[in-house]
């Protein structure tokens, strides 16, 4: 089978209208907002050095914030804002998806527009501004007839830079719930689907190039007084916007939205849930790649209707509990706490995806290590790797305290690379996940936790407040509750981590359903 016969290209292509359309909408809206704010600021501050310096400094600071962090920051910011507007004016808005992404990207677009705008306007020969005054122009006429046209090439260069930045950075808006071409990249990275990663990268690069060229056409048209040329560029941008509006027209908003966090198991489970709902005759779509702090709030706000979370995660992150209780007790308490937020804990899926300390089986056997307690004697000469949040989570503190773990070094890693790293000996121990299929693949062992420092992490199905009384939904999902055991989930995850046509979340979800006895 040749590279391009891979059916994943077709699958990628089928998402394109949705992903590209959303990407173009959020990027161009952000760019437009950035321009509407930045250009007047550049004009207003062109002869005022002090405010100009402050403005440029602020814009530069924004630019130093990594795009992913800036986008992520806007989510809690808007949550706060919407709670204020709700309290004061009785109006709320969604802090999820489009709005935070658009605002963060608009902020991101400001620096090049401001800097080039100010540079362009200040770079004009003062003799020409004097001449504009001398022939009898008002300040406004001088700006419109002389200064702006002369600054245009420099200003447009800034706008083009901003456009390319925004389109590139918009791929990072997936975790805050804005569908974008980043969905390919996030999903592809998590499920080791390089076709998706490549597709997402190429699509966003092509889009950036196309918009850059169209803006270039507008610029050269304006500069040479060539109206058809400028018009052609503007028409191109307009056509792009129009084309991306088409796919949303026919789409209803009444369907169920299934959320998924940014790892393979979640992609597979969201596809499975979506398929079950559709099989029951309900309209459903998956919204994947959501940040783990975003997804719960999105459920609470009703931006998504259901998703799978893990009891231990909510215990620590939402209930802010550091004590550990037996499985059933913890679940009951969690269910009651969630009910206070009108969130329904529908039930457990049957497996647990807990953190576990994982190391190569051979090495563990050689050292006589079976439990974390055995490991403690060796940690002074060992290094440990965990995902981006592990070392700041209460489980890690609890583990260290319960077993007196003192590692020589600790590193943060992309979860998918951890297993290969520990298998190759690059690190000695990793904080892996019990349901991960790579444990079996690399012949690793998850060490027992006899002192129960790590809380239970049962996979649980959560429903949004607005779905509390939705019996059709509950009925459609009931066939999954308690049915997925750890071995089945590990195998599904292992399949999803492959890099072939059968490893897409959709394909694995179908396999999983078959394995559960469905057809």
């Amino acid at each position, binding site marked *: 089978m040749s590279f391009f016969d891979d059916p994943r290209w077709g699958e990628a292509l089928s998402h394109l209208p949705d992903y590209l359309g959303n990407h173009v909408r959020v990027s161009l809206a952000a760019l437009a907002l950035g321009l509407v704010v930045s250009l007047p600021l550049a004009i207003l501050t062109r002869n005022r050095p002090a405010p100009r310096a402050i403005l440029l400094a602020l814009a530069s600071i924004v630019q130093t914030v990594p795009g992913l962090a800036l986008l992520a920051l806007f989510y809690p910011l808007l949550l706060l804002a919407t709670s204020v507007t709700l309290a004061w004016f009785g109006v709320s808005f969604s802090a999820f998806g489009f709005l935070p992404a658009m605002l963060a990207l608009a902020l991101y677009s400001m620096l090049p527009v401001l800097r080039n705008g100010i540079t362009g306007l200040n770079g004009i020969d003062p*003799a*020409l501004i*004097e*001449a*504009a*005054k*001398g*022939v*009898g*122009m*008002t300040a406004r*006429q001088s700006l419109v*007839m*002389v200064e702006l*046209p*002369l600054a245009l090439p420099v200003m447009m260069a800034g706008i083009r830079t901003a456009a390319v930045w925004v389109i590139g950075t918009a791929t990072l808006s997936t975790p805050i719930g804005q569908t974008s071409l980043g969905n390919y990249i996030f999903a592809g990275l998590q499920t080791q689907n390089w076709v998706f990663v490549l597709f997402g990268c190429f699509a966003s690069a092509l889009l950036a190039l196309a918009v850059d060229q169209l803006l270039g056409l507008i610029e050269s048209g304006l*500069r040479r007084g060539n109206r058809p040329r400028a018009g052609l560029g503007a028409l191109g941008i307009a056509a792009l916007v129009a084309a991306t509006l088409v796919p949303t027209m026919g789409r209803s908003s009444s369907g169920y939205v299934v959320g998924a966090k940014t790892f393979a198991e979640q992609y597979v489970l969201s596809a499975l849930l979506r398929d079950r709902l559709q099989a029951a005759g309900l309209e459903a779509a998956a919204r994947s790649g959501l940040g783990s702090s975003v997804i719960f709030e999105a459920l609470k706000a009703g931006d998504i209707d259901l998703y799978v979370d893990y009891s231990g995660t909510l215990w620590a992150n939402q209930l802010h509990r550091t004590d550990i209780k037996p499985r059933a007790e913890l679940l009951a308490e969690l269910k009651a706490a969630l009910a206070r937020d009108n969130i329904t804990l529908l039930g457990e899926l049957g497996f647990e995806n807990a953190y576990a300390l994982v190391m190569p089986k051979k090495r563990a056997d050689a050292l006589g290590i079976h439990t974390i307690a055995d490991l403690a004697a060796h940690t002074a000469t060992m290094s440990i790797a965990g995902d981006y949040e592990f070392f700041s989570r209460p489980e890690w503190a609890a583990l260290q305290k319960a077993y007196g773990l003192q590692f020589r070094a600790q590193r943060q890693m992309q979860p998918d690379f951890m297993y290969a790293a520990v298998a190759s000996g690059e690190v000695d121990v990793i904080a892996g996940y019990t349901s991960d299929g790579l444990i079996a693949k690399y012949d690793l062992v998850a060490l027992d936790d006899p002192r129960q420092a790590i809380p239970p992490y049962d996979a649980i199905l959560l429903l949004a407040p607005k779905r509390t009384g939705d019996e059709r939904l509950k009925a459609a999902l009931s066939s999954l509750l308690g049915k997925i055991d750890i071995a089945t989930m590990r195998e599904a995850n292992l399949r999803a981590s492959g890099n072939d046509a059968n490893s897409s979340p959709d394909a694995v979800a179908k396999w999983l359903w078959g394995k559960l006895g469905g057809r």
Partner: protein
Amino acid sequence: MPSKLAISYRNVTRSFGTLTAVDDVSLDIAEGGFLAIVGGSGSGKTTLLRLANRLIEADRGTITVEGADVQSIDPVALRRRIGYVFQSGGLFPHLSVADNIGITPKLLGTPATEIAARVDELIELVQLDRTAHRDRLPEALSGGQRQRVGVARALAAKPRIVLMDEPFGALDPLTRDALGEDFRELHRKLGLTTVMITHDMTEAILLADRIAVMRGGKLLAQGTPAELSASSDAYVQDLLRTPRRQVERLNALLPQSGAA
């Protein structure tokens, strides 16, 4: 004395920080007159010129244009009424020759067809070629041609007064001579009042009726070239020495026509 004054300065002072650019200057320019303001760089001659159309405002003193205090006239309206020729043209590089020339009438709301006709007329008047130059951008013109466009632009709204800031300074000698002569002819034909800045006393003597000499913000002397040569001021005499020596050397070096 001519009966009416086009521009009159009365005890005018203007400082920039600690520098007094124009220091208590009183000066009259009669209607139809051609005054050259001569001085070195930093003498205050450009400031003095710009005070007349309020590109610069005076700190003290009174300036009147055609009898009215400039402070009583809206500066934008005042500037549209007075032609201004900038050093090395000051043409807008993104506008064609025609659009540069027609800018002030356009600002005044003159109909486009009228502007077009006026532009054609002015292109002829400053001896440019309508077909070759009308739609060019300034960058495609020579220095002399640009300055001709600058003059045409200053005349476009039919002003009675034209201010010129070293208009011919950056040109080669031949072009400079031709342009100077052509402008003097326009000045006469259109009945303009002209105030021209120059650092070149020879140019001032050849073009202007009257000359004002500035130094360190002060008006040292004013009058016809003949009156000026009678001045006892050492600096004025210094300035006049150059054209005199040039005349002597030229007379010695070039055979007198018809004398052989």
